[in-house]
């Protein structure tokens, strides 16, 4: 295998001697990797935080996600139950064992069957936390970890995500900074923009190709500096 590695890298180096694409230096590579310069950030996110939260909601709704704004975490069980009832879904939730969701008091809805862990094939609805909401395109950033198994984001038909207003940022770059502040990259980062979709049959858009048919965002009002 290392023979192929040497041959490929050798071939690349030899061919690059004649390239006209750009400057070649290891220093420029290290400078870029260390400095991580930001490029053009779309003007649409040059806004105060309140307006970014509104932009996030507008953009998420444009891609067929649904958003409900709540006053606090205590309202989550009620809102989740309402979502299940609205869509005539079984009163059961598969929860991410996320510390940020610990404060939710599910005993307020005793009829709701609640379990925690990675997704099982028969789970119909999951509820997870999130790392950030990116206003630019109404995109959620979800990161794998002990409290956030990735299967919950894809296997169940319905995905409910808890997002705090304080987690809403403008651009993708802002979300990466948040993730870096929390440590190195996790095994999986999912940027999720609306529910699953396909246009593979005559380019007619269908929601729910393989992943969730519905993406429901519970947006918690806790001020610009709040959030976990």
């Amino acid at each position, binding site marked *: 295998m*290392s023979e*192929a590695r040497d*041959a*490929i*890298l050798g071939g*690349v180096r030899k*061919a*690059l001697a*004649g*390239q006209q*694409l*750009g*400057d*070649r230096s*290891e220093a420029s*590579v290290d400078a*870029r*990797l260390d400095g991580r310069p930001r*490029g053009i950030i*779309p*003007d*649409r996110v040059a806004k105060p935080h309140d307006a970014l939260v509104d932009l996030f909601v507008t953009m998420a709704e*444009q*891609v067929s996600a649904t958003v409900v704004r709540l006053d606090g975490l205590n309202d989550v069980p009620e809102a989740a139950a309402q979502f299940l009832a609205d869509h005539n879904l079984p009163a059961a939730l598969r929860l991410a064992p996320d510390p940020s969701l610990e404060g939710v008091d599910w005993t307020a809805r005793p009829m709701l069957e609640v379990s925690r862990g990675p*997704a099982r*094939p028969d789970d119909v609805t999951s509820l997870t936390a999130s790392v950030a909401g990116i206003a*630019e*395109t109404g995109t959620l950033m979800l990161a*794998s*970890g*002990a409290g956030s198994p*990735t*299967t919950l984001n894809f*296997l169940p038909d319905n995905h409910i995500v808890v997002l705090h207003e304080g987690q809403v940022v403008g651009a*993708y*770059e802002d979300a*990466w900074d948040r993730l870096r502040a929390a440590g*190195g*990259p*996790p*095994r*999986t*980062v*999912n*940027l*999720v*923009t609306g529910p*699953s979709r*396909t*246009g*593979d*049959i*005559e*380019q*007619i858009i*269908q929601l*729910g*190709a*393989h*992943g969730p048919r519905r993406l429901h965002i519970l947006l918690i009002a806790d001020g610009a500096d709040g959030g976990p």
Partner: protein
Amino acid sequence: MQPTSLAFKDRARDAVTDAQLQRALLNMKPGFQQRRAATVAKLPEFEALRDQARDIKNHTLANLDTYLLRFEERVVANGGQVHWARTGREACEAIAEICRRAGARTVTKGKSMVAEEIGLNDHLEAEGFTPIETDLGEYIIQLRHEAPSHIIAPALHLVKQQIADTFREAHTDLEADRPLSEPRQLTDEARAMLRRSFLSADVGITGANFLVAETGQTVIVTNEGNGDLTQCLPRIHIVISSIEKAVPTLEDCSAILRLLARSATGQEFSAYTTFSTGPKRAEDLDGPDEFHVVLLDNGRSAVLGTEAEDTLRCIRCGACMNHCPVYGSVGGHAYGWVVPGPIGAALDPALIGLDQARHLPNASTFCGRCETVCPMKIPLTKIMRHWRVKEFESGLAPASVRRGLSLWAWAAKRPRLYRFGTRLAMRMLGLLGRRRGRIGWLPLSGGWTRFRDMPAPQGRTFQDQWAAASRQDSGGR
């Protein structure tokens, strides 16, 4: 995949008379062109982002060796394994070996054009594994034993009735008279069938849209969620990627991502953009136990430093083919290799050889729409023209073309003769078509006039008009 690009002319001729194909190709205008235009109009920075993306990728390619090494370092540090493959054969063998060691049977796959390029499914089947395509379009064409006709919409060439027939034939355990006339029903049936595969697969194989050197992440950009179910459920995740997918940082990746979905499907952002780093961690509750990245060259390194090197910036969005009048008339299969359309015409000669792909650079009107929509600013017509010159110089062009061009060149180098000749030809053609205003038959031009009339020329030649206008211009001053 064995190239069949030499049959381009025959296939193109069949394609324009294929009523179902023509109906399917009509979907491209509302499906791709109009959606892209609407979304691009909402982002004033789009043009500046194109320049920026070109610069990012040029810098990366100019330092590709270093970026690949940094990427490899990070993958290994995160517990993953990197396999280097010079050829498609080496890549297929590396992947089969991983499957063998895992005792795998079922292998699910996300959409990967590199996997198509190297004929991975055939190889895995020959080795006794069962590869299952999970992208809806790829699933459909796998059932039909066809190649993809478009790099982001593999089943673009089909209409829903054909897909319904395919499903009835393949899914024999379902009721024979079930309704399948609507895309919704077809999508739901595929969803239900593929659920079983996702859950039973031992290995999941995905491609990569980007390789992030900073973090060692591989990135897939999808809409269906099949790529994610392919990589988060099985015990082993294998990524097959070609080497030019490298980008330096997450900032650079984000900058290019702003262009990808808008250019491809006209979405602001694709539904799922997923970044994968190594196998599952100690604290993780799910994810694969093993993470492998197969880095494929297959002729790409040799393209660096050549006139076609700009093609390595391509992010496979498909915008060039979505806007190409030739692709829009003949579809993707006519091109005879994995990458069709203008980017195929520029790239394929470099990867499969000009002798195999020589028709493709000629399958262009040079209208330049491909270049105006290319998010990475690849000079597609310039590269196609380079291949046409190469074709002529190396004697691959047919004798009639070579003789015709030589004759024209001989005349063009003698301006007086040329002017006289064009005047004469215009007058004669004008006479020939004076009754109908067009000409339906010309000697030596049957290939052209068989399918369309030539408008009869009127008035004077361009050079004469130009000379007259110049005289008038200077006289008026």
